[in-house]
């Protein structure tokens, strides 16, 4: 029964585009990482692309608004470094925030941990979005 359900969902979805070459797939992944949703837009998945294009930067912006911190790459503290990698996942927005001097973090703010959670999860979700774009570019979806 479950297999039938999956099959019907697949047939209802947009047909997968032909698989791209390695360079094409790498470019899709890079674009998808740099600008959340851009990889899906490039692959013709407009609805998904637009949602990611709005939702992930919105999460990142809310994280900064709540006083979250963009963690440094302190490899002597593995958890801090991992949080930094997650922050970096949101792509160009991370660099824009760094350039603007945002993301210093307000440790005393009541919403500090919420801010960190928004920032980290926005980056991690964009990694998943990038993997989804990778699958689509290969013709798996």
């Amino acid at each position, binding site marked *: 029964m479950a297999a039938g359900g999956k099959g019907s969902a697949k047939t209802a979805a947009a047909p997968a585009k032909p698989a791209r070459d390695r360079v094409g797939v790498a470019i899709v992944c890079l674009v998808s990482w740099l600008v959340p949703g851009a990889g899906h837009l490039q692959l013709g998945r407009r609805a*998904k692309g637009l949602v990611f294009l709005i*939702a*992930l930067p919105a999460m990142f912006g809310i994280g900064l608004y709540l006083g979250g911190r963009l963690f440094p790459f302190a490899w002597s503290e593995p958890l801090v470094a991992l949080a930094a990698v997650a922050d970096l996942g949101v792509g160009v927005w991370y660099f824009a925030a760094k350039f603007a001097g945002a993301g210093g973090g307000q440790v005393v703010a*009541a*919403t500090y941990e*919420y801010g960190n959670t928004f920032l980290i999860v926005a980056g991690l979700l964009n990694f*998943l979005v990038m993997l989804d774009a990778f699958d689509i570019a290969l013709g798996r*979806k």
Partner: protein
Amino acid sequence: MTSHLFWLTVFAFFVSLVFAMLLRDTPREQLRIGALMFAAFLAAALVLGWLMFPFPL
């Protein structure tokens, strides 16, 4: 605004939205799984919050 419940709701909304778009391809299925995930997020947070209530930090 420092309402934990409010930010928890906003967080649940965005995460449910992104996961629904990733996991399903048709709008109907996306709406269904997104709503289910959003409700599960809120219910789990409220239940866990009440379960932790008697325990001091």
